[in-house]
């Protein structure tokens, strides 16, 4: 009973700690959006990013996890108490149903994780990063952890909520990944224009059905990338690409996406690809675009600088950067064989994560090129092409592309970014006028 109570409490801890600092009023004001453009779910998602950024900064200062936690909990509690009237107004029939849905699904996944609490293969490597922080040792010790060349933020978050849980059991740290994932799914459905709440609930549940993979909650970091991209795209779709650039939104999105590179190394490429595309497709002068691109590169440089000089880890595997790579790339026969193998595994990954199949079809139905005005769909389509290109280049560039490597890594690589294209699916649903159905 104690464990179940602790699980319930953990849910409310997440709810409280992520209630600071944004609410719909100040978020809409900051982003210069119309009243009601962003609701409480959006604010909660943004608050999660604020929390993660605070944790990222805290991770470099060797602050006791307990102190950071208590400070954050205190601030968010004061913030909630200050906004108590607004919070009380939220308690109405419509919100309670939505909250009830969110609560049941979150607690169900928490309990499922607590029951089958086994870590999977990579989880045992990632946990060593987490232990560096759990045991409150210096950040420099990360260089002795397993898979030391990978960034540490996911491990820090894991340790943070593990240490600050009621029972201090390992799996409580992983609950944050679940919470973040579910918030991202709920947030992206703010794009839907259906009148029927029931229909939205069914679609949210269907999406969870398609994207929930307990294996990846067993210590893998994939969901952190997935959720970050889902929330980022929810905010990207509020940008009007045909009007002048909305700097506040673009900066906010870039700051959100920059966290990708603190979760896994491939996050650098996602940030570079999706961020640059956002800058390029926005209506703006070339000089401003250039400045924004420099901003992206600066953030990447800062990450690399901090990793190399504070933690003394050197990111990507440098063993690949050698003379043999040219010979490898000029070997066309090998390239074609590898390209076929990659294609085969892309197909297999799409079957494993069928969201991809829906995305392929949604692009087909969305009439990308007929719909000249909708630059958002174009943004998604170019992102999709570059995403696929990135996957091919990763494996064609790597000198050792074996069937085994492809079978254990490519599906996860595909999964990470699948959430980014969920809006295409929702836009197709919007287009076929599901909102007119009397449900």
């Amino acid at each position, binding site marked *: *009973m104690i464990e179940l109570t602790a699980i319930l409490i953990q849910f409310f801890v997440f709810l409280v700690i992520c209630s600071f600092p944004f609410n719909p009023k100040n978020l809409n004001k900051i982003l210069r959006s119309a009243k009601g453009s962003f609701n409480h779910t959006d604010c909660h998602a943004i608050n999660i990013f604020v929390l993660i950024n605070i944790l990222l900064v805290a991770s470099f200062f060797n602050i006791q996890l307990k102190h950071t936690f208590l400070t954050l909990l205190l601030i968010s509690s004061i913030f909630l108490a200050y906004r108590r009237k607004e919070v009380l107004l939220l308690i109405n029939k419509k919100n309670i*149903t939505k909250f009830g849905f969110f609560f*049941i699904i979150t607690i*169900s996944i928490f309990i499922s994780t*607590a*029951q089958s609490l086994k870590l999977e*293969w990579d989880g*045992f490597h990632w946990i060593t990063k987490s*232990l560096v922080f759990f045991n409150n040792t210096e950040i420099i010790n990360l260089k002795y952890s397993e898979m030391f060349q990978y960034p540490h933020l996911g491990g820090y978050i894991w340790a943070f909520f593990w240490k600050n849980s009621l*029972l201090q059991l390992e799996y409580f740290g992983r609950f944050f990944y679940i919470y973040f994932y579910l918030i991202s799914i709920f947030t992206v459905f703010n794009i839907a224009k259906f009148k029927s709440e029931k229909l939205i609930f069914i679609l949210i549940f269907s999406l969870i059905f398609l994207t929930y993979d307990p294996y990846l909650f067993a210590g893998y970091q994939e969901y952190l990338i997935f959720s970050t991209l889902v929330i980022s795209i929810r905010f990207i779709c509020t940008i009007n690409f045909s009007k002048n650039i909305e700097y506040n939104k673009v900066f906010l999105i870039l700051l959100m996406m920059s966290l990708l590179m603190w979760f896994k190394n491939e996050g650098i490429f996602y940030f570079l690809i999706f961020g640059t595309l956002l800058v390029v497709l926005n209506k703006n002068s070339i000089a401003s675009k250039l400045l924004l691109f420099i901003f992206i590169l600066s953030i990447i440089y800062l990450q690399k600088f901090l990793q190399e000089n504070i933690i003394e880890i050197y990111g990507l595997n440098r063993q690949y950067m050698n003379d043999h790579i040219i010979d490898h790339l000029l070997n066309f026969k090998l390239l074609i064989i590898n390209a076929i193998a990659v294609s085969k595994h892309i197909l297999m990954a799409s079957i494993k994560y069928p969201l991809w199949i829906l995305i392929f079809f949604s692009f087909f139905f969305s009439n990308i090129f007929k719909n000249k005005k909708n630059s958002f769909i174009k943004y998604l389509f170019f992102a999709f092409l570059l995403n696929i290109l990135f996957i091919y280049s990763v494996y064609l560039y790597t000198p050792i592309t074996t069937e085994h490597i492809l079978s254990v890594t490519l599906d996860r690589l595909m999964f990470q970014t699948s959430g980014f294209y969920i809006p295409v699916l929702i836009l197709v649903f919007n287009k076929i006028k599901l909102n007119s159905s009397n449900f």
Partner: protein
Amino acid sequence: MNLHSKNIKNYFFYLIFFLIIVKFFNTSYNSYSILLWDYDKRMTQEYGFCKNESWGFYNHVIKKYNLGNEKINIINDEGFVRIYSLFKNIDITDKNYRYLMVLNFQSENKEDIYNLKIHNINDFSIKYRSNNCYLLELND
């Protein structure tokens, strides 16, 4: 349709929908399982006592011999991943260790452990054995 019957229909929908979620994630069974088996038992069920990763054996000997902060080397003879990182205070090392934990070592009698291919295996004595799992201690 009047408002009352529409409300009943809505409540019925949400009830069924929430039950489907609970069923889909096996929440009732999982809750029961958590109530019935504590953390240690569930970990032993998942990782085995003296099979696969052998979490149960780790937990047992660490508690029994108070191995926190002792230098230990671990060998899982069946190649399963070593799960020492699930224990916060043990000091894993491949050199100058005082304790050696050998897991899943198939043997007919306990002296077979000295056939293990470790150069200084004869410097150790068996401190504890459970089935195919051994805890050895360096002789003084």
